């Protein structure tokens, strides 16, 4: 019985862990006299939130994949491909809504292909998505004719406007979309049968299969959902850039994976939470924002983010050893 209390506390700390990191980062910049007055302003939070949208959407899907014991290296290429498709469709005269849906769908199809290859060919996700990373990036450049696509401005470009058009929205529509989807996905992952199956597959796939879970179906669904999120993220990328750029977001998959890992996701599968992931995204965005405001050189920023990933995972390990 005496172990009960520490275990409860442990649980609280597990949830709070990433928040402490976020608080540390915000506190750090709030205490530096040069920027403190500006850093804590609502206008700044607004831009940090807008800047987080693209990684956040990718990370929502990535959380599902990592919890299921997989990985998706093609996320960033998928974002680029979807943004190019959206721009292409708008340029070809499609209604913005159709273009946006096409963009999201493209992401979903790439995800579906990932899932199908992982389950049908029984290849490890690392290899499948490594290949897809090149395929999607190449396809994006091909469709865009090896250059960026200038599309006419439509309401699709308002999704990521720092100052939203009806000003009562306060935040860019993209930010609200992320918040809504994050809440929805948190519920799906925690409280639905599908969510529990994702955890089961990630914790012990053979046990899950023996328990009667159709693991292949779960995995295909996980990769497809993650693909849809990348597609939406690509739409947001297009909205932000106002052009379809096939070279955008190179290396962004690592930021996305880092966000999930900082938020408590385990690359061995079976662990991770949407809330943690979102906090992981915010930690990286605030760091970037603060470093830029300070005018610190980029290498400092890169070193800090690298160190945070290692520290976050180390703390995670220590917590688990305690359990």
């Amino acid at each position, binding site marked *: 019985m005496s172990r009960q209390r*520490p275990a409860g*506390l*442990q649980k609280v*700390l597990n949830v*709070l862990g990433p928040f*402490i990191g976020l*608080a*540390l980062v*915000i*506190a750090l910049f*709030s*205490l530096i*006299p040069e*920027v*403190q*007055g*500006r*850093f*804590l*302003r609502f*206008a*700044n939070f607004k*831009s940090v939130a*807008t*800047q987080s949208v*693209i990684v956040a959407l990718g990370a929502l899907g990535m959380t599902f994949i990592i919890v299921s014991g997989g990985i998706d290296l093609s996320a960033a290429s998928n974002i680029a491909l979807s943004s190019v498709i959206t721009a292409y469709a708008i340029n070809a005269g499609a209604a913005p809504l159709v273009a946006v849906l096409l963009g999201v769908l493209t992401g979903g199809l790439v995800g579906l292909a990932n899932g199908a290859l992982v389950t049908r060919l029984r290849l490890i996700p690392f290899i499948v998505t490594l290949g897809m990373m090149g395929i999607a990036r190449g396809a994006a450049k091909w469709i*865009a004719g*090896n*250059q*960026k696509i*200038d599309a006419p401005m439509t309401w699709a*470009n308002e999704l990521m*406007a*720092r*100052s939203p058009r009806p000003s009562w929205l306060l935040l860019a529509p993209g930010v609200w979309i992320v918040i809504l989807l994050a809440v929805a996905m948190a519920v799906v992952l925690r409280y639905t049968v599908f969510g529990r199956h994702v955890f089961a597959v990630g914790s012990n796939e053979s046990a899950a299969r023996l328990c009667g879970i159709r693991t292949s179906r779960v995995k295909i669904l996980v990769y497809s959902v993650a693909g849809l999120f990348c597609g939406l993220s690509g739409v947001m*990328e297009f909205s*932000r*850039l*106002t*052009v379809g*750029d*096939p*070279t*955008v*977001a*190179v*290396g962004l998959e690592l930021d996305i994976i880092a966000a999930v890992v900082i938020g408590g996701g385990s690359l061995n599968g079976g662990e991770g939470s949407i809330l943690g992931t979102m906090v992981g995204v915010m930690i990286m965005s605030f760091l*970037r*924002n603060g470093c*830029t*405001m300070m*005018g*610190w*050189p*980029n290498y400092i*920023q*890169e070193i800090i983010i690298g160190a945070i990933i290692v520290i976050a995972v180390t703390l995670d390990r*220590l917590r688990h050893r*305690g359990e």
Partner: protein
Amino acid sequence: MKSLALKTMAGCLCLALASSACAKKSSDAAAPREGRTLQIAVIPKGTTHEFWKSIHAGAVEAARELGVEVIWKGPQKEDDRAQQITVVEDFISRGVDGIVLAPLDDRALMRPVQDAVRERIPVVIIDSALQGSDFTSYVATDNYKGGVLAARRLGQLLGGRGRIFLIRYQEGSASTVQRETGFYDTVKKEFPDLVLLVRDQYAGATTETAYQLAENLISRFPDVEGVFAPNESSTFGTLRALQESRLAGKVVFVGFDSSPKLVQGLRDGHVQGLVVQNPRKMGYLGVKTMVAHLRGETVEKVIDTGVVLATADNMDDPDIKSLLSPDLSKIID
């Protein structure tokens, strides 16, 4: 034990946050706008190329002369449009007095620049063009003319006939597209007997990607006689590929921009011409124009900073030398 320590830490943090929130109000009220040193953010396309270091030096030089503060910050990943937008937004948040920006994309950076102007932060564009007219002034090289100079040099050395590559830099980069267009137009108009074996291959952002492209092109067309590359990384990547395939010195090679390795190439006869801009002047005039605008003076809408062709013959002239190998050590460390 551990959890207790963590808890205490969290407690301290909350306190710190609360106190800083209070401090914020008082410091805001106390900060007078008048009499403060002007803060100018200078945002390059990247930070590792020699070219940007020269711009940095020029900007710092102007800052010292005029008594203003320059904050130098590029996108975290070289040539990443999305991240450059982020940097501009962060400086709007910081509330700098002015932004000097080398836009990575003539279209994608329009909205952040509009945002800045809406928040009463003027923007001076350097190096590459931006669509629209929200900016205060455009300080840049006449890039088209640079391409023309390169084409004439190549055409003359080849006697007006031969098989050549036009290597392009990257999709959507306005300054290099203008150089490529200047080169292409001049070849078509003045040297109709030059055959362009390649004219729509992109070298990409880094020396490595340019190196690979040039290697592949050379193995496909080993009989190439002339090459033009439109910026520092593509020129150096191509030079490496020519040297590796033992074609350096046999092929007429005209590049753009300079770096110690390229100057060495010029001296060794591996490079027959380098079109050089005056990035230091660009950085200098960018900041100077901004300060003049902030102090209420009227400024020119377009300011040309000039291009010259450096060759093995004129490379030791003091004027050319200072453009080829600027001594930045006194300005930035």
